[in-house]
């Protein structure tokens, strides 16, 4: 009935004050700093010119007509459909009617797209530079220290996660190395930033990586040909089966009120 031997390592209490705490504080401060750096680096979104707004919103109007067509009476819907379909097919709302049918220019030569890429680069830089620096700093000064013990047992799979930089095979998983503590703070500080900076901060890298994917998925991304969008919307309108929500509404209302 022998108890498993509990590993005890006598740690210098100074390890807490001089390694654990500094790493944590530095990580939090970098996050805060990164947030403000990102705010400063952000370029104000460029203003759209009037024809582009018109193009975008006209398309939106077509989408609205398609989605909410059932509020219109049949005759009123047919009139609108005829107008919208012909206007869309003629390309009446295009911001650049001459550019119809031409292939899209290379995004590399488009200044607007370049700007977006620059923004992405800036974000990446603000993330990479401090990360590299801090990683180097920790590797140079604190590598190889075991700095704390988790108060709960863990399975051996966590060994690579919690003890990077400490090359001992038999060490209990509960011991955490300094480099691992750095990684834990790197990925786990989001709630802390939320608390300090508010919920839409730019401190966390995870959120940034998500943000970089998103804008390209926008409905009217620069790489999409607006004319194609209009054509497909016209087709959608053509095949739409129309019904009127007001048909029989009086009976529905009576039934509803009677119950």
């Amino acid at each position, binding site marked *: 009935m022998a108890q498993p031997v509990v590993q005890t390592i006598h740690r210098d209490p100074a390890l807490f004050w001089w390694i654990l705490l500094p790493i944590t504080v530095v990580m939090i401060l970098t996050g805060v700093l990164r947030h403000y750096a990102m705010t400063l680096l952000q370029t104000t979104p460029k203003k759209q010119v009037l024809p582009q*707004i018109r193009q975008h919103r006209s398309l939106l109007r077509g989408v609205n007509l398609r989605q909410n067509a059932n*509020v*219109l009476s049949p005759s009123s819907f047919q009139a609108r459909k005829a107008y919208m379909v012909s206007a869309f097919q003629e390309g009446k709302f295009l911001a650049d009617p001459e550019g119809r049918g031409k292939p899209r220019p290379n995004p590399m030569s488009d200044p607007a797209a370049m700007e977006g890429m620059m923004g992405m680069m800036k974000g990446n830089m603000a993330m990479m530079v401090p990360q590299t620096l801090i990683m180097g700093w920790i590797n140079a000064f604190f590598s190889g220290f075991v700095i704390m013990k988790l108060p709960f047992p863990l399975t051996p799979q966590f060994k690579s996660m919690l003890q990077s930089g400490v090359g001992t095979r038999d060490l209990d998983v509960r011991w955490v190395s300094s480099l691992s503590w750095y990684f834990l703070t790197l990925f786990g500080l989001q709630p802390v930033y939320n608390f300090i900076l508010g919920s839409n901060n730019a401190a966390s890298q995870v959120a940034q990586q998500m943000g970089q994917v998103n804008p390209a998925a926008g409905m009217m991304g620069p790489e999409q040909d607006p004319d194609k969008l209009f054509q497909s919307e016209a087709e959608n309108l053509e095949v739409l089966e129309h019904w009127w929500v*007001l048909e029989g*509404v*009086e009976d529905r209302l009576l039934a509803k009120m009677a119950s």
Partner: protein
Amino acid sequence: MPQPNLLTPPASIPPATALALSQKAPPILSKSPTSSLPWPLSLLLSTETPATWTIHENLFFAALRTGDDASARKVLDRLTSRFGADNERIVTLRGVYEEALAQNEAELQKIFEDYEKILREDPTNFAVRKRRVAVLKSLGRTNDAITALTVLLENSPTDAEAWAELSDLYARQGAWGQAVYCMEEVLLVMPNAWSAHAQVATLHYQSAHTNSPPSVSALSTSLRHFSRALELNSSYLRGFYGLKLASKALIPLLSDAPMSNSAKKRAAENGDDDDVPPPKLQTVKRLEELATEKLAEIVRNYNAGKKGWTGYQEVEVLAAKELLDKDGKVER
């Protein structure tokens, strides 16, 4: 009575509430929302929240509405120092302030020219475009206002507010067809807005009465839109009011069925009728009874001050009561 709250949009508050709101100006103005410390320290001690500026903006409108121009000026100055004089919204607010203070047509004319200048520099400033329409309206140049709105909507056809305004302008001119068209655009943007349905219904109802005898198809469309508004919101006073009016107008027309039947056939041959037949006489009668009953219920409960029934506007309840009294069927 809904609580006066500076975070609700100013358009939907009755005058009494607006007065209550503008009287909140002194305590808000006595506190500074931004910290007076130099830059890095001010970040730590600022009490500024996004709501702060919404409150300021709504306070500005409430103050102007109640004639408290001095407070409005202070709020405007504060907003200007925070966001800069070139901010689109600030430009608009300043315009509203100047419009409110303008004494005569010449001053309005000057403001109008300022707007023109701003728009020449930045044609995408839709808020200023709308202000420009408002000035044209107060100058009494309705036709110019309509033209300006058409241009605005040509460029931004998903703007429900502008469509509603244009519809209103057309309705004033008696151009019912156009007014209905514009209101239907609002419905396309907001398909479940019962107030928009009621407005469409009202326009149809008014247009029906321009020719005598009132056209059955317009009246039945009106009836249906009112019904839809009530389907979406079953305690909508205006909906019941309109439903009663529309059904009362429809009953005599549908009653002499043979004549209207032949008229309907003729209309169908001409192809100007909707392909949906008018509702049955029985249904319309029952709708009329329903509306009367509900209106009476609302009036009764409102006057008794019953909980949950006092949210109606007093004017509307009075109008409903009057309608019922005229009908001579008030159940007490």
